């Protein structure tokens, strides 16, 4: 099965290892992974700031670049939600592009849905050992709706001991440009999240969205908390051997492995 990876801008720039982990999970399940070169971002920054014109331009570019693929995989629920739910809405007054956008969105999958529903994987090469807690991103709860699927995948490997958060439906306070428009409110929200994470006793927090991960890691590190932060693809693919998000690279290994 040939699939295309949309890495998402944050994975591309901040966490290539999560991109390679995604590739590894897909290849292990027998997929041939293409990474179309002309990809940048899904357009959420423009869309969420009321700039529909620019959001449309970016969406068109993504749709064109990926139009040949049967399966387009995104290791982020918020980008997947954007592509699946909001791309068609962007073109509601343009019949031609509306059709293109709906066709396109039918082929988009967030990583967890694809692994769970399409590849139906039942084992994952986890190497990580310890207690993790999982932060459900808002888009994974309410757009791609993968809460249970994520739990199923994590349960595929008994090395993972999942400790659930007390308030798993709460937003971490990232919200794209929200966190820089309202840094104080965002800080208060992420503090609540961190208190919840700490209360579980887990040593690692995992999530499926880079935005949340950067936000949570950023605050954890500022507070000098030893809790580690990983993308779910890294955990599932057994690629947690490098420094966690926001941690110093003490392994001296800069080249990601695959």
């Amino acid at each position, binding site marked *: 099965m040939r699939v295309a990876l949309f*890495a998402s801008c944050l994975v591309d720039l901040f966490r290539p290892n999560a991109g390679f982990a995604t590739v590894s999970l897909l290849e292990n399940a027998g997929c041939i992974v293409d990474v179309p070169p002309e990809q940048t971002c899904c357009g959420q920054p423009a869309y969420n700031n009321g700039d529909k014109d620019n959001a449309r331009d970016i969406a068109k570019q993504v749709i064109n670049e990926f139009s040949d693929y049967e399966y387009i995989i995104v290791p982020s629920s918020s980008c997947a939600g954007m592509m699946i739910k909001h791309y068609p809405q962007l073109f509601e007054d343009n019949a031609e592009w509306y059709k293109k956008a709906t066709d396109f969105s039918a082929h988009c999958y967030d990583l967890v849905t694809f692994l769970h529903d399409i590849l139906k994987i039942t084992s994952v090469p986890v190497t990580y050992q310890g207690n993790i807690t999982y932060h459900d991103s*808002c888009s994974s709860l309410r757009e791609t709706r993968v809460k249970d699927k994520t739990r199923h995948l994590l349960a595929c490997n008994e090395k993972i001991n999942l400790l659930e958060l007390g308030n798993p439906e709460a937003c971490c306070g990232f919200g*794209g440009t929200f966190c820089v428009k309202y840094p104080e*409110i965002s800080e208060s*929200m992420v503090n*609540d999240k961190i208190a919840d994470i700490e209360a579980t006793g887990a040593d690692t927090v995992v999530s499926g969205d880079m935005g949340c991960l950067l936000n949570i890691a950023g605050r954890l*590190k*500022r507070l000098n908390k030893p809790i580690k932060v990983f993308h779910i693809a890294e955990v599932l693919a057994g690629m947690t051997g490098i420094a966690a998000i926001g941690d110093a690279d003490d392994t001296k290994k800069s080249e990601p492995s695959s």
Partner: protein
Amino acid sequence: MKSKSHAFKQQAADALVNVSLQKALLNAKDGFIVKRKKAMDELPEFERLRTKAIEIKEHTLSHLDQYLEYFEQQVIKSGGTVHWASTTTQAQQIIVELCKQANARTVTKGKSMVGEEAAINDALEAAGFEAIETDLGEYIIQLANEPPSHIIAPAIHKSKQEIADLFKDHHKKYNFNSKLETIPEIVNEAREVLREKFINADVGITGANFLVAETGSTLIVTNEGNGDLTATLPKTHIVISSIEKVVPTLEDTSVLLRLLARSATGQEITSYTTFFNGPKRNSDIDGPENFHVVLLDNGRSNMLQNENHEMLKCIHCGACLNHCPVYSAIGGHAYGWVYPGPMGSVLTPIMQGLDEAKDLPFASTFCGRCEEVCPLSIPLPKLLRQHRNHIHHDKLNTSRSRLGLALWAFVASRPALYRPLSNSFIRALGWLGKKSGRFSWLPFASAWTQSKDLPAPAAQSFMSAWTQQQAKKKSSENE
């Protein structure tokens, strides 16, 4: 009240460092959420009720003029009068006039958010009437001279101690001098003070949760019973409400009531649900002699066919506030007008102007929990996004954010430009941040770094590492 929504940013920042407010918010935080969840878990019919409720509202709104006319006829048949107000000023004038006709001195009030919207208390006081809020929460904030901070729990931001202090100052004149320490003591003293007001009031003003066209009923839900005392004891009962609150039948009302109480407080039904139909009848031995309904438009009719029409389905349950992480962090006052939280961030820009309230639609992470819990499934994030679109379109956002957005979009829609730029950008950052793995300060990201470190980007982007890897693979295959 005059809107202070333009100062949202400052008000929000102040709220976050207001120790007593933060304590009160923490105390309130999970109560509503837990109670609502329990009530919904015990109601397997919830989704069907929700679907029906949406149907009821959509149907009524698409025949709004006819239902309002029918409602009016029924009120007249029962001996009451309906008054119409396009604007809040008109509503104030009508109510002041009615109080004058009643030769009133003291006016008791049941909780009404439309009354807050129309600033009825200010108008009554300016006209020389003594206007007393009787819902305990409303009474507390009236003493404190503050607006409500929650649509169903107006004094949620006040601590027991603050309330005791307010009572100490304001109840001296009624010869109450004891130091109040417990909640029962506070509630009891309010009961005694307000009892006198109920008995002596000449006019009682209540709101209405719904207006029933079929019967011309106005109905209120309260837990305290204050609304019923307000409506029953004075000679004149005035109901202030708004035009979108009409529903066709008593059966339709029952559907909405089942959703309202559970969404609001997690109760199956509020302690007192009362249907009023006109003034005292010949055989009655109590009840008001005059019955008036004042219906406010205040921009609602204009929403009927525009993109904001979904907001007219709101039944004011407050669930979206209770589940909003931004509301829970800053409380209601920061929003600057009578309606806070997600529903307020949609309504305030409509009623007070987009420019006045342009910061509110951005005070959301689009987490979507409001829409999820809204008993009418109102797409609040979508409505906020529409406001954002207009703000951007009308150039009401700052030129700095417009420029940033434009530059970013210019680059992001051109991969040939994006790739080398982003690569060199992160190469520099990645190199700088390599040692510690993060930045605690960055010149262009100070809004981030004021409270969080920024995890350092990788020295090489995924795309460039991938390209390199593929090239290597290819060449080794060719060897």
